[in-house]
């Protein structure tokens, strides 16, 4: 088990280093930060430009610059400064991260709490009306673009019915609609996966045996079968997280949610590369970290996984 965990941690570190190198070189390629930092209105002479370049260390070789960046990042948590606002990126991150985490957690919670029981129910009551409705929801949830569902929700519940706020962060009420929209895709996937895994389990020998033994049907289903059907959904957690991060970019944009996703889009459209760098690295870190946790949990749950290779 220790070897398995160590290997997974090492893989995660390598992935993050690779990501940082890719992002850093991307930023490096997109333009000269010294030119961007020099305000346009001042007729900046070549000397000032050269001096700034020297100050920022842009004259040094690429790998040295990368090393310096990583050193400042790891020792001081320094992500550099926004080109536009001149604020330190880490302060902006600290403002934005809680909002995104809140939204992602709510989305994940909703998709689990609804998707898993609904999938199991679909399998148990196969071909019933409930199963058919579930199937339709899943098909729609996997096909409808999230940004569009978000906008339709804003029109219907926010503007027309005026039930819930649809703009910005705040209390629980602000969280409800964005979280539902964010959860829709993962929820659909979880329903489908839960259904098929439950169908497999219901068909297995031990369930048949439990039934033959005369066990009550509700105990067979919820105590024995459902428990096993949930295991494959765990690995799906990692995938779901990628989906949630993807979705949160779009959902944050529509609901004006002040999170990392919006910061990232602002960075890209305003060509504020240090911001893009900071947000991508932080999202990447969250993603890799959760995937690592899921992998390790899965290693505990299923010995076959950790003994492979």
């Amino acid at each position, binding site marked *: 088990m220790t070897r398995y965990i160590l290997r997974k941690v090492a893989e995660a570190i390598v992935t993050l280093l690779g990501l940082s190198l890719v992002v850093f070189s991307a930023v490096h390629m997109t333009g000269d930060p010294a030119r961007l930092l020099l305000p346009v209105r001042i007729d900046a002479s070549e000397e000032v430009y050269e001096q700034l370049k020297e100050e920022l260390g842009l004259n040094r070789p690429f790998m040295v610059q990368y090393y310096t960046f990583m050193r400042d990042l790891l020792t001081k948590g320094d992500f550099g400064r926004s080109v536009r606002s001149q604020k330190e990126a880490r302060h902006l991150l600290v403002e934005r991260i809680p909002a995104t985490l809140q939204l992602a957690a709510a989305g994940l919670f909703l998709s689990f709490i609804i998707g898993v029981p609904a999938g199991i129910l679909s399998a148990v009551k196969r071909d019933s009306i409930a199963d058919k409705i579930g199937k339709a929801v899943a098909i729609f949830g996997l096909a409808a673009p999230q*940004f569009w569902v978000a906008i339709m929700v804003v029109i219907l519940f926010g503007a027309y019915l005026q039930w819930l706020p649809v703009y910005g962060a705040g209390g629980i009420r602000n969280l409800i609609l964005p979280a539902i929209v964010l959860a829709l895709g993962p929820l659909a996937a979880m329903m489908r996966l839960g259904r098929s895994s439950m169908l497999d389990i219901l068909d297995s020998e031990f369930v048949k045996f439990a039934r033959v033994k005369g066990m009550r049907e509700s105990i067979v289903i919820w105590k024995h079968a459902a428990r096993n059907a949930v295991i494959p959904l765990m690995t799906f957690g990692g995938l779901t997280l990628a989906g949630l991060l993807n979705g949160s970019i779009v959902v944050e944009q529509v609901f004006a949610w002040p999170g990392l996703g919006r910061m990232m889009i602002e960075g890209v459209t305003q060509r504020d590369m240090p911001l893009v760098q900071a947000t991508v690295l932080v999202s990447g870190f969250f993603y890799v970290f959760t995937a690592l946790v899921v992998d390790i949990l899965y290693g505990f749950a299923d010995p076959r996984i950790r003994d492979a290779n």
Partner: protein
Amino acid sequence: MTTLTGESGQANRLSAFMESARELRVPWTPAIVIVVLVFLAIFAPVLAPNDPRETDLLNARTPPFQTLSSPLGTDFVGRDVLSRLIYGARTSAFISMFALAAGVVVGTVLGLTSGYAGRWVDTIIMRIADATMGFPSILLAMIIVAILGQGLMPIIVAVAVSTWPRIARMIRGEVLSVKDQDFVTLAKIAGVSPAVIVWRHVFPNVLNTLMVITSLSVAGVILTEASLSFLGLGLPPGDPAWGIMVAEGRVSLLKTWWISLFPGVIITVVVMAFNFFGDWLRDSLDPKLRRV
């Protein structure tokens, strides 16, 4: 007499065709949706009643089903929504086709290489594929758009990058099951070069899988393109693309709901059609992929 046999021969052929179509259980509705989409994309200039970019401020914000000239209404600068939707089919089809083609070529080449070469080549390619596949595709696309700037080319690259890893993974898996078979070993003994073995002997055997995984990737490609366009990371604003149209409707949501509604419905229907079609192709060509 001859005409009679001729006719009955034709009738036989027709009924045989219908019979085999029934046996294949072609999903007609999705198939028709896809054919209509391709038709719209090809003949957009002929079919669209108006110029998708022409603004007409006097007739802006016309609601749908009011005038014959703009049956689905006009947007906030008076562009015809129906024409923009038809041209949007063209944009979507164009970007998806090139992105998919790029993703398929890269994925296939890397998958074949990875599976056949094995060892460290395999490890490196599959590590990169896993890292890319796990990473949120919009995040990835944003990095690419940040590097290359906005436009047609960056969006194609961005979508292709999110497509290739899954294809490479599937192809590699198939290659592994093919490469130890006798005909490959015999070719090796005969001194055939690895490149020729892969191309002439391995590739034809993974073609079914490739077709299935390609058709299953279409829906994702369309959705990614639409999301990027919506976020303003794709084509310049004003261009007729479904994602951009949904975003444009946000200007005055309550008063002009139709600008956002129609393109979204179309994306949903098209993605559903490709999902169903891909599922059908998988079940009929390669049932063992059911769990993909």
